[in-house]
């Protein structure tokens, strides 16, 4: 297997937080070109993990390996070039005076010439439907507009790894769907690895792999259909079951019994119900 990220025994403790570890002996591998969701309760360590991988915190113990390079003070810039990170609060992301400058910022750093840069910037702003806001100051946008611009900034520089920290939490339902699709297209076309921190179960269900954090520890990791079928773990960690599992359980309660494997498969459950309800 070709892993683009390998984390071994990572432990992190913030200053003045007593004995409490934000990350406690975390080990994980992320396959190149995969889409991984990280889920877990508030304060479970998701953002800390993301920032550690991006070299934004000097961790206490463990090894982080990104694309064959071991993260250290000497390599942090090489690693950061490979990663495009979208922060939980877009206000922490903006550096440019205008939307256009902001999206161009990452490209300038990569030394891309002006003409080409304009083209790329126009193109991504169009993709996230923010082309009419080029000259606006980022702090004069609505919440969802800010998130769109933050995403555009990362997409423009085409990193090998994209880390989304609740990057679509303020988007309207249609907008969220469009943006996830857009990232998915770029992910598939360019073999980009995506790590998405999210509280949205239906989004996590679409990924290749799910990692569950709880109090700084990984408590489960695997295919979404396996992870979200573990009711006991979901309850223990404050997560919710997917809509489809809710529906499945409510049907069973009313004496309708679809095959068990449909509990994690919305399309198949829909199909089964159609058969049940339409056959004369």
């Amino acid at each position, binding site marked *: 297997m070709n892993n683009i990220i390998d984390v071994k025994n990572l432990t992190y403790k913030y200053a003045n937080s007593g004995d409490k570890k934000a990350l406690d002996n975390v080990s994980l591998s992320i396959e190149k070109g995969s889409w991984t969701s990280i889920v877990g309760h508030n*304060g479970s360590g998701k953002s800390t993990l993301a920032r550690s991988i991006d070299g934004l915190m000097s961790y206490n113990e463990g090894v982080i390996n990104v694309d064959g390079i071991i993260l250290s003070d000497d390599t942090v810039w090489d690693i950061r070039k490979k990663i495009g990170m979208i922060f939980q609060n877009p206000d922490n992301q903006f550096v440019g005076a205008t939307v256009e400058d902001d999206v161009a910022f990452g490209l300038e750093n990569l030394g891309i010439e002006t003409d080409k840069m304009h083209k790329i910037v126009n193109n991504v702003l169009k993709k996230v439907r923010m082309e009419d806001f080029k000259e606006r100051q980022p702090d004069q946008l609505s*919440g969802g507009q800010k998130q769109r611009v933050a995403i555009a900034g990362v997409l423009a520089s085409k990193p090998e790894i994209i880390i989304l920290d609740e990057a679509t939490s303020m988007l*309207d*339902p*249609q*907008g969220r769907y469009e943006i996830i699709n857009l990232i998915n297209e770029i992910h598939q076309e360019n073999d980009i690895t995506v790590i998405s921190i999210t*509280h949205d179960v239906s989004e996590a269900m679409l990924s290749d792999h799910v990692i569950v954090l709880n109090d700084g520890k990984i408590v489960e990791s695997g295919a979404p259909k396996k992870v979200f079928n573990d009711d006991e773990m979901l309850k223990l960690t404050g997560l919710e079951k997917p809509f489809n599992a809710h529906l499945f359980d409510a*049907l069973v309660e009313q004496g309708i019994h679809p095959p068990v494997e449909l509990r994690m498969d919305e399309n198949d459950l829909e199909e089964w119900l159609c058969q049940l309800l339409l056959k004369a």
Partner: protein
Amino acid sequence: MSIAFESVDFVYQAHTPFENLSLRNINLTIPDGSYTAIIGHTGSGKSTLIQHVNGLLRPTKGLVNVDGQIINANTKNKQLVSLRQHVGIVFQFPESQLFAETVVDDVKFGPLNFGVSDTEATNRAKDALQKVKLPEEFWQKSPFELSGGQMRRVAIAGVLATNPKILILDEPTAGLDPQGRFEMMELFNELHHKEQLTILLVTHQMDDVANYADNVIVMDGGQIVKNGAPVEVFRDTKWLIKHQLGLPKAANFAIKLADRGVKFDKMPLDISGLVHQIVNVKDRRPSHE
């Protein structure tokens, strides 16, 4: 406390090249003790609208009337002091609301500012922090050394501690974990019922709209384009999709079945409604053993 908007226009950055008309001719009445959801796609004017209710933004044209207090273009901050004690706003990005050295001090600030004694303010702060389920180990920490969802809880506690009569929530559950989201929505609902709080909820979560609100306002391009009970608003699915809005998950699923020919009597908005409809259709089917 009731709220009324009369012919309100609002322009950001008036008289500059960036002038931007963000509310157009808003007419609206929100009865005392109601629970209103405000939905609409990105940039439609939701956050701009709600900031008019305590005069953080003032109408460029027209007026807002909150329980007799008039807010128009000429209203001064001084005139709004007493109103602001009764209108609590939880903003879209909670960090923007935090500033004190410790979590407890942050939550105490509102009540202290409104003239409550230090002991009373401390009690209210602790009570509010318990309600939002922020563990005690974080109370003496800096609010900036918290996770995103923990900050959100502190921001909500800060508003609850002021005992508002109107509670305005701008996507209050974004960033909360699933259990926290559920508990917080239940907490708001309890305040609404037990203490007759008037609630304005800006949200993209259509399930919350269906479960909690008695009225829905749909915004588009700075205008109110629909206003009605959730069942009415969710009935017109094509129209909602045109306005980039979704449906509650149960309704979405029902539509997929309906598109394939399953005939439901009415559109379910939650899982129990959906299962009820499914059972009905199943029982109606001629049996053929």
